[in-house]
Protein backbone atom coordinates (compact mmCIF):
# COMPACT_ATOMS: atom_id res chain seq x y z
CA UNK A 1 0.00 0.00 0.00
CA UNK A 2 1.27 3.42 -0.93
CA UNK A 3 1.13 5.93 1.92
CA UNK A 4 -0.75 8.99 0.63
CA UNK A 5 0.15 12.23 2.42
CA UNK A 6 -2.45 14.39 0.70
CA UNK A 7 -5.34 13.89 -1.71
CA UNK A 8 -6.26 16.73 -4.02
CA UNK A 9 -9.76 16.81 -5.42
CA UNK A 10 -9.47 18.32 -8.90
CA UNK A 11 -12.65 16.70 -10.20
CA UNK A 12 -14.88 18.80 -12.44
CA UNK A 13 -12.00 21.10 -13.22
CA UNK A 14 -10.93 21.52 -16.78
CA UNK A 15 -7.32 21.55 -17.96
CA UNK A 16 -5.07 23.27 -17.12
CA UNK A 17 -6.70 23.84 -13.71
CA UNK A 18 -5.84 20.34 -12.38
CA UNK A 19 -2.19 21.02 -13.21
CA UNK A 20 -2.31 24.43 -11.54
CA UNK A 21 -3.89 22.95 -8.41
CA UNK A 22 -1.30 20.15 -8.40
CA UNK A 23 1.46 22.72 -8.62
CA UNK A 24 -0.02 24.63 -5.65
CA UNK A 25 -0.45 21.48 -3.57
CA UNK A 26 3.10 20.35 -4.30
CA UNK A 27 4.53 23.67 -3.13
CA UNK A 28 3.07 22.94 0.33
CA UNK A 29 4.52 19.44 0.57
CA UNK A 30 7.95 18.21 1.53
CA UNK A 31 10.51 16.08 -0.18
CA UNK A 32 9.43 12.45 -0.31
CA UNK A 33 5.75 13.08 0.44
CA UNK A 34 3.11 11.59 -1.81
CA UNK A 35 0.25 13.46 -3.42
CA UNK A 36 -2.78 11.83 -4.98
CA UNK A 37 -4.80 13.87 -7.50
CA UNK A 38 -8.34 12.97 -8.53
CA UNK A 39 -9.51 14.42 -11.86
CA UNK A 40 -12.31 14.07 -14.35
CA UNK A 41 -10.67 15.86 -17.28
CA UNK A 42 -8.91 13.09 -19.23
CA UNK A 43 -6.21 15.59 -20.22
CA UNK A 44 -4.81 15.23 -16.69
CA UNK A 45 -3.58 11.76 -17.59
CA UNK A 46 -1.04 13.34 -19.93
CA UNK A 47 -0.54 16.77 -18.38
CA UNK A 48 0.19 15.94 -14.74
CA UNK A 49 2.84 13.35 -15.67
CA UNK A 50 4.38 15.92 -18.07
CA UNK A 51 4.38 18.51 -15.30
CA UNK A 52 6.11 15.97 -13.00
CA UNK A 53 8.77 15.30 -15.61
CA UNK A 54 9.63 18.96 -16.17
CA UNK A 55 9.84 19.59 -12.42
CA UNK A 56 11.69 16.39 -11.59
CA UNK A 57 8.99 14.89 -9.35
CA UNK A 58 8.48 11.15 -9.41
CA UNK A 59 5.33 9.83 -11.04
CA UNK A 60 4.12 6.81 -9.13
CA UNK A 61 1.04 6.02 -11.21
CA UNK A 62 -1.48 7.62 -13.57
CA UNK A 63 -4.56 5.70 -14.52
CA UNK A 64 -8.20 5.97 -15.50
CA UNK A 65 -10.61 4.39 -13.06
CA UNK A 66 -14.15 4.58 -14.40
CA UNK A 67 -14.82 8.21 -15.28
CA UNK A 68 -11.97 9.46 -13.16
CA UNK A 69 -8.26 9.85 -13.61
CA UNK A 70 -6.08 9.23 -10.58
CA UNK A 71 -2.49 10.42 -10.53
CA UNK A 72 -0.03 9.76 -7.72
CA UNK A 73 3.29 11.47 -7.46
CA UNK A 74 6.15 11.81 -5.03
CA UNK A 75 7.77 15.15 -4.33
CA UNK A 76 11.45 15.26 -5.27
CA UNK A 77 13.08 18.57 -4.43
CA UNK A 78 15.60 19.39 -7.09
Amino acid sequence: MVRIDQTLDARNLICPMPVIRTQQAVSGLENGQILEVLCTDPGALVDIPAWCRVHGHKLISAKNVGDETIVRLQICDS
Partner: protein
Amino acid sequence: MAVKRKAIALISGGLDSMLAARLMLEQGIHVEGLNIFTGFCVEGHTHAIRNRDKNRQKRNNALWSAEQIGIKLHIIEAIEPYKEIVLNPKHGYGAHLNPCLDCKGFMVGKAREWMEQNGFDFIITGEVLGQRPKSQRRSTFPVVARESGAFDRLLRPLSAKLLPETLPERAGWVDRERLYDISGRGRHIQIALAEKFGIEDYAQPAGGCCFLTDESYSRKLQDFWNHRENKDYEFDDIMLLKVGRHMRPGTDWKLIIARDAGETQYLRGYRSKFAHLSITSHSGPLSLIDGPIQDRDVELAARLVARFGSSRSAERVDVQFTDRNGRQRMLSVAPMQPIEVQQQWYV
Protein backbone atom coordinates in the same frame (compact mmCIF):
# COMPACT_ATOMS: atom_id res chain seq x y z
CA MET B 1 33.06 32.26 -11.18
CA ALA B 2 30.56 34.28 -13.17
CA VAL B 3 27.01 34.29 -11.77
CA LYS B 4 24.61 32.23 -13.84
CA ARG B 5 21.90 34.64 -14.91
CA LYS B 6 18.27 33.59 -14.84
CA ALA B 7 15.52 34.36 -17.31
CA ILE B 8 11.81 33.72 -17.06
CA ALA B 9 10.36 32.90 -20.48
CA LEU B 10 6.72 33.41 -21.38
CA ILE B 11 5.77 30.09 -22.97
CA SER B 12 2.60 30.03 -25.04
CA GLY B 13 2.98 26.56 -26.46
CA GLY B 14 3.86 27.81 -29.94
CA LEU B 15 7.19 27.55 -31.73
CA ASP B 16 8.41 31.14 -31.29
CA SER B 17 8.40 31.20 -27.51
CA MET B 18 10.06 27.82 -27.50
CA LEU B 19 12.85 29.05 -29.79
CA ALA B 20 13.38 32.22 -27.75
CA ALA B 21 13.89 30.12 -24.62
CA ARG B 22 16.13 27.67 -26.46
CA LEU B 23 18.34 30.51 -27.70
CA MET B 24 18.88 31.65 -24.13
CA LEU B 25 19.83 28.13 -23.03
CA GLU B 26 22.42 28.21 -25.83
CA GLN B 27 23.98 31.19 -24.14
CA GLY B 28 24.25 29.48 -20.77
CA ILE B 29 21.30 31.29 -19.19
CA HIS B 30 19.19 29.43 -16.64
CA VAL B 31 15.68 29.51 -18.12
CA GLU B 32 12.33 28.61 -16.60
CA GLY B 33 8.99 29.00 -18.35
CA LEU B 34 5.80 30.75 -17.33
CA ASN B 35 2.41 30.11 -18.85
CA ILE B 36 -0.61 32.19 -17.92
CA PHE B 37 -4.12 30.77 -17.96
CA THR B 38 -6.69 33.48 -18.64
CA GLY B 39 -9.70 31.27 -19.32
CA PHE B 40 -9.62 32.11 -23.02
CA CYS B 41 -6.61 29.99 -23.91
CA VAL B 42 -7.01 27.44 -26.68
CA GLU B 43 -5.89 24.42 -24.77
CA GLY B 44 -6.49 20.83 -23.94
CA HIS B 45 -9.92 21.21 -22.40
CA THR B 46 -11.59 22.19 -25.64
CA HIS B 47 -10.18 19.05 -27.16
CA ALA B 48 -11.27 17.07 -24.16
CA ILE B 49 -14.86 18.19 -24.46
CA ARG B 50 -15.58 17.40 -28.07
CA ASN B 51 -15.87 13.95 -29.55
CA ARG B 52 -14.39 14.93 -32.86
CA ASP B 53 -11.05 15.56 -31.22
CA LYS B 54 -10.96 12.23 -29.45
CA ASN B 55 -8.11 10.96 -31.59
CA ARG B 56 -6.06 14.04 -31.21
CA GLN B 57 -3.43 13.91 -28.56
CA LYS B 58 -4.74 15.78 -25.55
CA ARG B 59 -1.84 17.64 -24.16
CA ASN B 60 -0.99 21.00 -22.79
CA ASN B 61 1.19 22.55 -25.46
CA ALA B 62 3.05 24.82 -23.05
CA LEU B 63 4.09 21.84 -20.93
CA TRP B 64 4.94 19.93 -24.05
CA SER B 65 7.22 22.70 -25.33
CA ALA B 66 8.92 23.10 -21.96
CA GLU B 67 9.66 19.42 -21.90
CA GLN B 68 11.06 19.48 -25.42
CA ILE B 69 13.64 22.08 -24.52
CA GLY B 70 14.22 20.82 -20.98
CA ILE B 71 13.01 23.69 -18.80
CA LYS B 72 10.65 23.89 -15.84
CA LEU B 73 7.24 25.38 -16.54
CA HIS B 74 5.10 27.23 -14.04
CA ILE B 75 1.46 27.67 -14.95
CA ILE B 76 -0.37 30.49 -13.24
CA GLU B 77 -4.06 31.17 -13.22
CA ALA B 78 -5.04 34.78 -13.85
CA ILE B 79 -8.75 34.55 -14.63
CA GLU B 80 -9.86 37.36 -12.31
CA PRO B 81 -7.20 40.00 -13.01
CA TYR B 82 -7.44 39.30 -16.74
CA LYS B 83 -11.08 40.42 -16.78
CA GLU B 84 -10.04 44.06 -16.71
CA ILE B 85 -8.00 43.47 -19.88
CA VAL B 86 -10.91 41.92 -21.76
CA LEU B 87 -13.58 44.27 -20.47
CA ASN B 88 -11.77 47.59 -20.72
CA PRO B 89 -8.71 47.37 -22.92
CA LYS B 90 -6.95 50.70 -22.88
CA HIS B 91 -5.59 50.11 -26.37
CA GLY B 92 -8.80 48.64 -27.78
CA TYR B 93 -9.53 45.40 -29.56
CA GLY B 94 -7.99 43.83 -32.63
CA ALA B 95 -9.99 42.36 -35.50
CA HIS B 96 -12.30 40.58 -33.02
CA LEU B 97 -12.52 40.91 -29.25
CA ASN B 98 -8.80 40.30 -28.83
CA PRO B 99 -7.16 42.98 -26.70
CA CYS B 100 -3.68 41.89 -27.80
CA LEU B 101 -1.65 44.92 -26.82
CA ASP B 102 -3.12 45.20 -23.32
CA CYS B 103 -2.85 41.43 -23.03
CA LYS B 104 0.85 41.41 -23.82
CA GLY B 105 1.49 44.15 -21.27
CA PHE B 106 -0.47 42.09 -18.75
CA MET B 107 1.41 38.86 -19.46
CA VAL B 108 4.82 40.49 -19.35
CA GLY B 109 3.69 42.26 -16.16
CA LYS B 110 2.90 38.87 -14.60
CA ALA B 111 6.31 37.62 -15.69
CA ARG B 112 7.91 40.68 -14.11
CA GLU B 113 6.16 39.96 -10.79
CA TRP B 114 7.31 36.35 -10.98
CA MET B 115 10.85 37.44 -11.80
CA GLU B 116 10.94 39.76 -8.79
CA GLN B 117 9.47 37.20 -6.41
CA ASN B 118 11.86 34.50 -7.51
CA GLY B 119 15.09 36.43 -7.88
CA PHE B 120 15.37 36.11 -11.65
CA ASP B 121 17.18 38.67 -13.79
CA PHE B 122 15.19 39.21 -16.95
CA ILE B 123 12.20 38.21 -19.06
CA ILE B 124 12.09 36.78 -22.55
CA THR B 125 9.25 36.40 -25.01
CA GLY B 126 8.95 34.87 -28.46
CA GLU B 127 7.59 38.10 -29.95
CA VAL B 128 8.65 38.85 -33.50
CA LEU B 129 8.65 42.35 -34.92
CA GLY B 130 5.89 42.85 -37.50
CA GLN B 131 4.33 39.45 -36.95
CA ARG B 132 1.01 40.78 -35.72
CA PRO B 133 -0.35 43.96 -37.24
CA LYS B 134 -1.56 45.52 -34.02
CA SER B 135 0.47 44.25 -31.13
CA GLN B 136 3.88 43.38 -32.54
CA ARG B 137 5.00 46.59 -34.16
CA ARG B 138 8.06 48.72 -33.56
CA SER B 139 5.88 51.33 -31.88
CA THR B 140 4.09 48.87 -29.60
CA PHE B 141 7.12 46.98 -28.28
CA PRO B 142 8.14 49.84 -25.96
CA VAL B 143 4.51 50.14 -24.78
CA VAL B 144 4.59 46.54 -23.56
CA ALA B 145 7.99 47.04 -21.90
CA ARG B 146 6.76 50.19 -20.16
CA GLU B 147 3.26 49.15 -19.12
CA SER B 148 4.43 45.80 -17.77
CA GLY B 149 7.07 47.54 -15.67
CA ALA B 150 9.71 45.28 -17.21
CA PHE B 151 11.43 48.12 -19.10
CA ASP B 152 14.83 47.02 -20.37
CA ARG B 153 14.70 43.70 -18.56
CA LEU B 154 12.48 42.49 -21.39
CA LEU B 155 14.39 40.76 -24.17
CA ARG B 156 12.91 39.43 -27.41
CA PRO B 157 15.68 37.14 -28.67
CA LEU B 158 14.11 36.51 -32.10
CA SER B 159 14.03 40.19 -33.08
CA ALA B 160 16.59 41.63 -30.64
CA LYS B 161 19.03 42.82 -33.30
CA LEU B 162 16.36 45.07 -34.77
CA LEU B 163 15.54 46.60 -31.39
CA PRO B 164 17.37 48.86 -28.93
CA GLU B 165 19.80 47.12 -26.60
CA THR B 166 18.33 45.78 -23.39
CA LEU B 167 19.93 45.33 -19.98
CA PRO B 168 20.88 41.65 -20.46
CA GLU B 169 22.77 42.63 -23.65
CA ARG B 170 24.38 45.77 -22.22
CA ALA B 171 25.48 44.00 -19.07
CA GLY B 172 27.02 41.20 -21.12
CA TRP B 173 24.75 38.47 -19.70
CA VAL B 174 23.69 37.73 -23.25
CA ASP B 175 25.71 38.11 -26.45
CA ARG B 176 23.69 40.33 -28.78
CA GLU B 177 25.57 39.02 -31.78
CA ARG B 178 24.08 35.59 -31.24
CA LEU B 179 20.53 36.89 -31.16
CA TYR B 180 18.29 37.18 -34.22
CA ASP B 181 16.82 39.83 -36.49
CA ILE B 182 13.64 38.12 -37.57
CA SER B 183 10.75 40.30 -38.69
CA GLY B 184 7.44 39.85 -40.46
CA ARG B 185 5.04 37.01 -40.82
CA GLY B 186 7.34 34.59 -42.66
CA ARG B 187 8.18 31.39 -40.84
CA HIS B 188 11.20 30.05 -42.71
CA ILE B 189 13.87 31.24 -40.24
CA GLN B 190 11.94 29.84 -37.30
CA ILE B 191 11.44 26.54 -39.10
CA ALA B 192 15.15 26.35 -39.92
CA LEU B 193 16.00 27.12 -36.30
CA ALA B 194 13.60 24.43 -35.11
CA GLU B 195 15.38 21.97 -37.38
CA LYS B 196 18.75 23.06 -36.10
CA PHE B 197 17.64 22.44 -32.52
CA GLY B 198 16.01 19.13 -33.41
CA ILE B 199 12.54 20.38 -32.52
CA GLU B 200 10.23 18.38 -34.75
CA ASP B 201 6.85 18.62 -33.18
CA TYR B 202 5.32 21.93 -32.24
CA ALA B 203 1.88 23.47 -32.13
CA GLN B 204 0.99 25.90 -34.85
CA PRO B 205 -1.80 28.04 -33.52
CA ALA B 206 -3.78 29.55 -36.36
CA GLY B 207 -4.36 33.25 -35.87
CA GLY B 208 -3.61 33.53 -32.20
CA CYS B 209 -3.15 31.87 -28.88
CA CYS B 210 -6.64 32.41 -27.56
CA PHE B 211 -10.33 32.25 -28.36
CA LEU B 212 -10.63 36.02 -28.48
CA THR B 213 -9.12 36.00 -31.97
CA ASP B 214 -11.82 33.62 -33.13
CA GLU B 215 -14.65 35.29 -34.99
CA SER B 216 -17.38 32.96 -33.90
CA TYR B 217 -16.29 33.03 -30.27
CA SER B 218 -16.12 36.83 -30.26
CA ARG B 219 -19.59 36.99 -31.74
CA LYS B 220 -20.94 34.85 -28.94
CA LEU B 221 -19.16 36.92 -26.33
CA GLN B 222 -20.55 40.13 -27.80
CA ASP B 223 -24.04 38.64 -27.88
CA PHE B 224 -23.59 37.59 -24.25
CA TRP B 225 -22.72 41.17 -23.26
CA ASN B 226 -25.55 42.62 -25.33
CA HIS B 227 -28.03 40.62 -23.31
CA ARG B 228 -26.96 41.42 -19.81
CA GLU B 229 -26.96 44.59 -17.81
CA ASN B 230 -23.24 44.84 -17.20
CA LYS B 231 -20.37 44.09 -19.47
CA ASP B 232 -18.88 41.41 -17.25
CA TYR B 233 -18.38 37.65 -17.10
CA GLU B 234 -17.72 34.73 -14.81
CA PHE B 235 -15.40 31.86 -15.61
CA ASP B 236 -18.30 29.50 -16.35
CA ASP B 237 -19.77 32.00 -18.82
CA ILE B 238 -16.66 32.12 -20.98
CA MET B 239 -16.21 28.38 -20.82
CA LEU B 240 -19.77 27.80 -21.99
CA LEU B 241 -19.20 30.05 -24.97
CA LYS B 242 -16.68 27.46 -26.18
CA VAL B 243 -19.22 24.65 -26.08
CA GLY B 244 -22.30 23.79 -28.09
CA ARG B 245 -24.48 25.47 -30.64
CA HIS B 246 -25.80 28.76 -29.30
CA MET B 247 -29.25 29.85 -30.50
CA ARG B 248 -31.26 32.82 -29.34
CA PRO B 249 -34.94 32.54 -30.31
CA GLY B 250 -35.98 34.82 -27.45
CA THR B 251 -34.67 38.21 -26.42
CA ASP B 252 -33.95 37.21 -22.84
CA TRP B 253 -32.88 33.61 -23.23
CA LYS B 254 -30.78 31.43 -25.45
CA LEU B 255 -30.19 27.73 -25.87
CA ILE B 256 -26.82 26.03 -25.60
CA ILE B 257 -27.31 22.79 -27.49
CA ALA B 258 -24.64 20.10 -27.19
CA ARG B 259 -23.24 19.02 -30.56
CA ASP B 260 -22.14 15.55 -29.55
CA ALA B 261 -21.96 13.15 -26.63
CA GLY B 262 -18.78 14.77 -25.33
CA GLU B 263 -20.47 18.15 -25.09
CA THR B 264 -23.58 16.62 -23.53
CA GLN B 265 -21.35 15.10 -20.87
CA TYR B 266 -19.73 18.46 -20.26
CA LEU B 267 -23.02 20.36 -20.06
CA ARG B 268 -24.35 17.86 -17.52
CA GLY B 269 -22.08 19.52 -15.00
CA TYR B 270 -24.15 22.71 -15.36
CA ARG B 271 -27.61 21.21 -14.88
CA SER B 272 -27.96 22.50 -11.34
CA LYS B 273 -27.30 26.08 -12.45
CA PHE B 274 -29.44 26.27 -15.59
CA ALA B 275 -32.93 25.35 -16.71
CA HIS B 276 -32.46 22.59 -19.27
CA LEU B 277 -34.12 20.31 -21.79
CA SER B 278 -33.41 16.62 -22.35
CA ILE B 279 -34.90 14.46 -25.05
CA THR B 280 -36.17 11.27 -23.44
CA SER B 281 -37.87 9.37 -26.27
CA HIS B 282 -34.86 9.42 -28.62
CA SER B 283 -31.13 9.95 -28.35
CA GLY B 284 -30.40 13.63 -28.49
CA PRO B 285 -28.40 16.44 -27.04
CA LEU B 286 -28.71 18.03 -23.65
CA SER B 287 -29.53 21.74 -23.95
CA LEU B 288 -29.13 24.43 -21.35
CA ILE B 289 -31.40 27.46 -21.28
CA ASP B 290 -29.45 30.57 -20.40
CA GLY B 291 -31.67 33.41 -19.22
CA PRO B 292 -35.22 33.71 -17.88
CA ILE B 293 -37.46 31.78 -20.24
CA GLN B 294 -41.21 32.42 -20.12
CA ASP B 295 -43.52 29.46 -19.78
CA ARG B 296 -45.03 30.10 -23.19
CA ASP B 297 -41.59 29.79 -24.82
CA VAL B 298 -40.71 26.41 -23.36
CA GLU B 299 -42.53 24.53 -26.09
CA LEU B 300 -40.75 26.48 -28.80
CA ALA B 301 -37.42 25.68 -27.14
CA ALA B 302 -38.35 22.00 -26.88
CA ARG B 303 -39.36 21.85 -30.54
CA LEU B 304 -36.12 23.47 -31.58
CA VAL B 305 -34.02 21.11 -29.47
CA ALA B 306 -35.91 18.13 -30.88
CA ARG B 307 -34.57 19.14 -34.28
CA PHE B 308 -31.03 18.39 -33.24
CA GLY B 309 -31.12 14.72 -32.35
CA SER B 310 -32.07 11.42 -33.89
CA SER B 311 -35.60 12.70 -33.28
CA ARG B 312 -35.49 15.26 -36.06
CA SER B 313 -37.79 13.34 -38.38
CA ALA B 314 -40.02 11.80 -35.69
CA GLU B 315 -43.62 12.86 -35.46
CA ARG B 316 -43.65 13.38 -31.70
CA VAL B 317 -40.75 13.69 -29.35
CA ASP B 318 -40.77 13.59 -25.55
CA VAL B 319 -38.74 16.33 -23.99
CA GLN B 320 -38.18 16.84 -20.30
CA PHE B 321 -37.99 20.43 -19.12
CA THR B 322 -36.29 21.19 -15.80
CA ASP B 323 -36.54 24.74 -14.48
CA ARG B 324 -33.94 26.61 -12.42
CA ASN B 325 -35.44 25.22 -9.22
CA GLY B 326 -35.27 21.63 -10.40
CA ARG B 327 -39.01 21.28 -11.08
CA GLN B 328 -39.65 19.01 -14.03
CA ARG B 329 -42.36 18.53 -16.56
CA MET B 330 -42.72 16.52 -19.74
CA LEU B 331 -43.64 17.90 -23.14
CA SER B 332 -44.60 16.01 -26.24
CA VAL B 333 -43.68 18.09 -29.26
CA ALA B 334 -43.23 17.97 -33.01
CA PRO B 335 -39.62 18.77 -34.01
CA MET B 336 -39.30 22.14 -35.67
CA GLN B 337 -39.12 22.03 -39.45
CA PRO B 338 -36.03 23.56 -41.11
CA ILE B 339 -38.12 26.33 -42.61
CA GLU B 340 -39.29 27.42 -39.16
CA VAL B 341 -35.75 27.85 -37.85
CA GLN B 342 -34.77 31.47 -38.29
CA GLN B 343 -31.23 32.20 -39.38
CA GLN B 344 -30.88 35.09 -36.95
CA TRP B 345 -31.35 32.72 -34.04
CA TYR B 346 -27.89 31.33 -34.61
CA VAL B 347 -25.47 33.30 -32.45
